[in-house]
């Protein structure tokens, strides 16, 4: 458990350091995600890596535990809305309408594209 958490934090730490050293506009945790993914893929290649947090479902179960309560992690940042009440009183309706329209448009555009492209492909598969 502690070793798995350490590995996750280590990936994030390396990500943060790399992002700052190279001055790229990618957030550190995203680089950490790629690093952990590469480690997991490398483990399939080189079984010698399957030890410690990378063995016995270690980092996997720690990650699943964290992701199962993903909603909780948004609450502290979200409560920050109390600081923005004056801004929301002034622009709140506009912001809510903008975000609602944008989220609906994005949902529909994404799912339409996904369904269209995947049906295009399955049709190509059927043609001999």
């Amino acid at each position, binding site marked *: 458990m502690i070793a798995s958490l350490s590995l996750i934090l280590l990936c994030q730490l390396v990500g943060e350091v790399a992002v700052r050293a190279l001055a790229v506009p990618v957030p550190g945790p995203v680089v950490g995600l790629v690093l952990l993914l590469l480690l997991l893929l490398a483990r399939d290649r080189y079984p010698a890596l399957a030890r410690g947090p990378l063995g016995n479902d270690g980092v996997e179960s720690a990650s699943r535990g964290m*992701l199962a309560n993903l909603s909780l992690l948004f609450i502290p*940042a979200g409560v*920050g809305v109390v600081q923005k009440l004056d801004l929301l009183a002034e622009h709140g309706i506009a912001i809510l309408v903008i975000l609602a329209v944008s*989220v*609906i448009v994005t949902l529909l555009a*994404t799912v339409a594209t*996904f369904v269209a492209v995947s049906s295009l492909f399955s049709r190509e598969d059927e043609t001999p």
Partner: protein
Amino acid sequence: MNDNPFSLWVYLSQSPLLWLTVTLVTYAATDAVSLKTRRHPLANPVLHSLWIIGLFLLLTNTSYTTYFAGAQFVHFLLGPATVALAVPLYENRTRVAAAVLPMLVALAVGSLTAIVSVVLLARAFGLPREIILSLAPKSVTAGVAMGVSESLHADPSLTAVSVILTGIMGAIIVTPLMNFAGITDFRGRGFAAGIAAHGIGTARAFQVDEVAGVFAGIAMSLNALVTSLLVPLAVTYLLR
């Protein structure tokens, strides 16, 4: 025990213990209600935790800074949770590989739509530039969006609020919207939820369907990558 209950409150209200406990207890209670209502979209645990805790802070006249001193321990986990997304991505790599083309095209279209639509709408509404910049990364997970906002010299706390509002609205609307549109491909439904409404949409997708959840998680992690690259470009072009 102190003979003055007020000084006990003064002590507790300044300690991280109280606000960390309030955060966890409120979430546990709202999540239990959400389970009881069989995950009804309107029983969203984030939505109800926010107004309950917010109201509590206003009534007790507690500053957000004091609250955050306790809640930061939960907030900190957003970074590691982003790293942890590597695991569902890895575990579903064959399913992901099979749907890689529809996902990449939908990722490009969805990510662009999310950014461009919000920037253009905000401009049409005549919002100040700082607010537009803060809203632009609203469809990615909070940790990433706040980082993007910071690098644009926008307001990361307003970004966080817009991220949460987007996530809650997306999570509430996705199921009725997809049913109404007659979409039965749960890979696509989940993928759209992850692109448009990040972690809160992903949490919602997992409640509805396992496959939808997996694809939402993938969409959210890919979108974190793409949006952090696209937002600085998009705002330079759209807000010239």
